[in-house]
């Protein structure tokens, strides 16, 4: 094999690739549900804290937090316990949480719930149809829905401190 030349020669064309790649960073952002969009309806089988199916329609009149999560999602280890705290706090004042696991394997979701137990109902959607209808763009993704069934805010990801901000939003919607 012959010598392949000097680093400078290598550098120039490679710089070009990166320039191209940067220029190509188009790819449209998926439209996200925004303020006051009616929350898409769904009916899904429950895997924890309930029997049968759960339907969003039946929760009309409550302030609802629909939370899409997965066992493989890191920040979900923070979001599930935080949501459980809020659910215990406001559950008897008309606040409901409906968690939707997007795990392909139900057992993975159940194992996660053993480590991070929650008291609110947890459903599963192995097909991805429901997260698609909500244009989910990150894990976890939460949709706060008002008593009239409209999406009032969207939360993507979960960090420490998000629980406090969410508490204020819930209080405001409960007061409406």
């Amino acid at each position, binding site marked *: 094999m012959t010598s*392949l*030349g000097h680093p400078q*020669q*290598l550098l120039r*064309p*490679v710089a*070009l*690739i990166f320039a*191209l*790649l940067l220029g*190509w960073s188009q*790819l449209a952002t*998926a439209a996200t549900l925004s303020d006051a969009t009616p929350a898409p309806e769904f009916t899904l089988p429950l895997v924890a804290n309930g029997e049968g199916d759960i339907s969003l329609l039946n929760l009309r009149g409550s302030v609802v937090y629909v939370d*899409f999560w*997965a*066992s*493989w*999602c890191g920040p979900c280890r923070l979001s599930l316990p935080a949501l459980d705290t809020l659910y215990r706090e406001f559950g008897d004042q008309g606040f409901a949480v409906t968690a939707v696991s*997007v*795990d*392909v394997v139900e057992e993975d979701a159940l194992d996660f719930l053993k480590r991070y137990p929650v008291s609110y109902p947890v459903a599963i959607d192995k097909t*991805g149809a429901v*997260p*698609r209808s909500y244009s*989910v*763009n*990150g*894990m976890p*993704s939460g949709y706060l829905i008002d008593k009239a069934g409209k999406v009032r805010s969207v939360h993507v990801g979960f960090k420490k401190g998000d629980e406090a901000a969410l508490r204020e939003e819930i209080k405001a919607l409960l007061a409406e």
Partner: protein
Amino acid sequence: MSVPRFVAIACLVTLSGCSGIEPVPAWERGYLADEGMQWQANPREAKFEGHVYTSKEASSGGAGAAGGGCGCN
């Protein structure tokens, strides 16, 4: 193989591979989250490996690390 040709091939492979890609939705990224799918699942192992290879071989940079330095020749 000359450097420009080498790079040109790398470009083509990369770009052709990237142009027609459907974004993978957020809820279908479970496999991508697997430990085996990470570029370097263990930073301390990467550091150790970099140490060994850069002190015993002439190359450095990129996926390995860099060299020289310590008295570990």
